[in-house]
């Protein structure tokens, strides 16, 4: 039986459809769950928090959504070992909810994806590389070593920030699952387009069952998203960033 994945929609979410579509194309039974249906979340095997502007980033990106009733189910699930992936706004929500990096109390954040160094929204193509061992984060475990994953950075608040000592701890202990990379695979911090600390593009938790990833692999995930990079002849086939979603679904199937 296919894994049941809930794609959560908060008021202001805007990337739910492509996220659901890609999960389906990668073999999951993915459904969009709207905020008025929060009670149904307990029936799902895994949660994906898609991109958007939940509550229009008012106060801080992710701050209000982290207190939404839907997060109660996500927090409970994550603590029970369910897989949780937050993309862009979803990642911001997971940090505000304290699920990533998860080193503090619930809903008492220790870090944030906050305002870009340039002070505004950016939208550009990026490459990501996993910079932790495959076993560190189950969701990213099925990715080949050194693979460069194409994605789009499309955010106004994507710069990882926290107290310097905490950032060093996250770096040292393998919480930074993906970093921004160049075409040669280098991951120098300056390659992060918004000035993210340690060049971080994604964080996991201690257990490795939560992934908070800022850039959008699902926006460069089918051949038609990047015709010049086409893999195979079918322009509608998944490619590029879909590898991360395939890895997520593979991890679910192994549970």
């Amino acid at each position, binding site marked *: 039986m296919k894994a049941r994945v809930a794609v959560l929609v908060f008021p202001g979410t805007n990337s739910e459809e492509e996220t659901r579509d890609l999960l389906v194309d990668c073999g999951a039974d993915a459904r969009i769950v709207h905020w008025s249906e929060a009670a149904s979340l307990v029936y799902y095997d895994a949660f994906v928090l898609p991109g958007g502007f939940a*509550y*229009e980033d*008012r*106060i*801080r990106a992710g*701050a*209000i959504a982290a*207190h939404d009733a839907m997060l109660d189910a996500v927090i409970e699930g994550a603590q029970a070992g369910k897989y949780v992936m937050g993309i862009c706004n979803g990642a911001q929500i997971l940090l*505000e909810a304290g699920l990533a990096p998860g080193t503090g109390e619930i*809903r008492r*954040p*220790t*870090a*944030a994806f*906050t*305002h870009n160094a340039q002070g505004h929204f950016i939208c550009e193509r990026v490459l990501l590389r996993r910079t932790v061992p495959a076993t560190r984060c189950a969701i990213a475990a099925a990715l080949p070593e050194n693979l460069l994953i194409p994605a789009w950075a499309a955010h106004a608040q994507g710069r990882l*920030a*926290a*107290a310097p000592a*905490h950032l060093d701890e996250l770096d040292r202990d393998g919480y930074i699952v993906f970093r921004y990379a160049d075409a040669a695979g280098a991951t120098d911090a300056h390659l992060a387009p918004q000035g993210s600390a340690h060049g971080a593009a994604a964080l996991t938790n201690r257990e490795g069952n939560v992934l908070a990833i800022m850039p959008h692999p699902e926006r460069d995930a089918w051949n038609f998203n990047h015709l010049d990079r086409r893999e195979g002849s079918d322009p509608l086939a998944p490619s590029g960033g879909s590898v991360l979603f395939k890895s997520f679904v593979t991890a679910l199937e192994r549970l």
Partner: protein
Amino acid sequence: MERVFAVELKIPDNEAFTAMRALQRLGVAVARVQRADILLFTGDEGEERLAASIERDERLFNPNKHRLEHVPSAHPREGEVWIEAIDAPRSLPMRRLVGWRLYDNAGKPLGNDDLDAACARLLCNPAIERAIR
């Protein structure tokens, strides 16, 4: 010496409404929320000259939507908290903070306990921000 100005919206503030609703859902007894950009200057420049320079700077102030107010005290008033990003750039001629002013059902500034709760649970992320009371 420090001089403080508040730039307030005179058009409806959607963000303040959302903040109020969110705080209410968290059980904070708040009935009205006001938000302002707090501009904090250090130096000898006179109040009028500073006010004029703010009003000239279209990045800070548009007379069609903003109201400029001189804040007599360099500290938040009762029921008020100022939020500042810890790593905010220091290159600007002033510090720029977000001021939240919370009122209870009786229209009075919110008491300290409720204000603490509002800060800790929603208005301030201590990993990246400091709350000034």
